[in-house]
């Protein structure tokens, strides 16, 4: 890392700290959410400087994008201002300070950042890089580890997303689906259709965002990206569409039932690939047996489960958005 990136990195982190302080201090929740988006972007940039392109992409899409939209959706239904607390929470400050000191205390014995002899670099990493070349033969090691070596974790991750979807639907209901499907489009629920410029710009953007999503989905083996990022990006484009054209139109394009099918279908696709490995004589989630050539099998497996992830993530995120939005309409 050159001196310039080093300085830039320090600059980013300092900015990040200032932003987070501001987030905690401000009483305006709208401002706090916007600053959260900025903080996410700063973190994403730092990740990029730390060679974590995949994570940076995800943090940008999820942290700055989806999370901001959800917070804003929630704010629209609650209140934008935080009430000022009655007294200064000295106890909390005390606890926080002590834990902070403990964490900082821990840093003094750590292996220095970036040292090749650090256990993180020396123990598992070389094997992953070697094996990805030999056994899976795709360039993006992150994808290989994510989808195959630790594919079970990723299955768990999809389940977490699915659980969140189930939970939000349980809590908020599927919302206005019944009325939205058949009822004529009302004017007050028409998004930003009366504003010409955002609408034109948005309409122009949506196809490109979708395209980006599909690129990220199917190019994840070669460059940063994969199912999660793609799912988030596709969801973002649909959410943008419903913001522009209104809830009901968006639900006409992708109805509630389809969203549910996407949530379920993605998980089942992932699970089916796992079970297929089991049926074909391997272990659960063993892709090598999917094809006569184990390497091909691995690639097939990774492709399929990434699609499964993408479908579920998109389905869940869009469903959650609709659930939030319909709550406001009701």
């Amino acid at each position, binding site marked *: *890392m050159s001196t310039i990136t*080093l300085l830039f*990195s*320090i600059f980013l982190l300092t900015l990040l700290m200032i932003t*987070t*302080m501001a*987030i*905690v201090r401000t009483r305006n*929740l709208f401002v706090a*959410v916007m600053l*959260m988006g900025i*903080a996410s972007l700063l973190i994403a940039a*730092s990740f990029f400087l730390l*060679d*974590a*392109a995949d*994570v940076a992409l*995800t*943090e940008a899409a*999820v942290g700055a994008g989806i*999370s901001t939209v*959800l*917070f804003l959706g*929630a704010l629209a*239904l*609650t209140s934008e201002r*935080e009430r000022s*607390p009655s007294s200064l*929470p000295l106890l*909390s400050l005390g606890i926080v300070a002590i*834990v902070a000191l403990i*964490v900082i205390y821990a840093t003094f014995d*750590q*292996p*220095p*950042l*970036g040292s090749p002899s650090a256990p*993180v670099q020396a123990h*598992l*990493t070389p094997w*992953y890089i070697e094996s*990805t*070349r030999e056994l899976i033969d795709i*360039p993006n*090691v*992150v994808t290989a*580890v994510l989808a195959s070596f*630790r594919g079970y*974790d*990723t299955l768990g*991750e999809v389940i977490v997303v699915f659980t*969140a979807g189930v*939970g939000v639907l349980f*809590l908020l209901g599927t919302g206005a689906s019944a009325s939205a499907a058949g009822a004529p489009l009302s004017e007050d629920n028409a998004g930003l259709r009366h504003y010409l410029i955002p609408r034109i710009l948005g309409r122009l953007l949506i196809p490109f965002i979708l395209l980006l999503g599909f690129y990220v989905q199917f190019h994840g083996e*070669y460059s*940063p990206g994969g199912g999660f990022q793609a799912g988030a990006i596709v969801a973002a484009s649909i959410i943008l569409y419903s913001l522009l054209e209104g809830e009901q139109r968006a639900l006409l394009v992708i109805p509630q039932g389809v969203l549910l099918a996407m949530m379920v279908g993605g998980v089942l696709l992932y699970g089916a690939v796992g079970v297929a490995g089991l049926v074909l004589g391997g272990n659960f989630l063993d892709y090598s047996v999917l094809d006569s050539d184990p390497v091909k099998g691995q690639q097939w497996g990774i492709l399929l489960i990434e699609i499964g992830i993408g479908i579920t*993530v998109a389905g869940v995120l869009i469903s*959650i958005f609709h*659930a*939030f939005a319909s709550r406001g309409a009701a």
Partner: protein
Amino acid sequence: MDILGLYHYWVFAVLLMTGFYAIVAKPNLIKKLIGLSLFQSAVFLCYITFGKLAGGTAPIVGKGAELFSSPLPQVLILTAIVVSISTTALGLALVLRIKEAYGSIEEDEIQEQDAP
């Protein structure tokens, strides 16, 4: 290099505690969730930091580079980010229901209403 490494960890500590402070000290439920988000982001930064290898590049083989930062922390954090957004979404859905049920999203006001 050492300085940067330590600086990263300190930022991690500060972020962690800023988030934690918002969780424990702020009565507003949405602010608590924002704090929770920050709290988790701090951990992401910590993981990615110790995955970094000096002089390495993103772990994408075949571009001629031979030194790669460790892919494993990145994979873990990809998962953790998704877990974090899932928790946030569920938490926000709860906040909406709480707002409907209590007409408030301030913790102390909610507790007052529950106290008979």
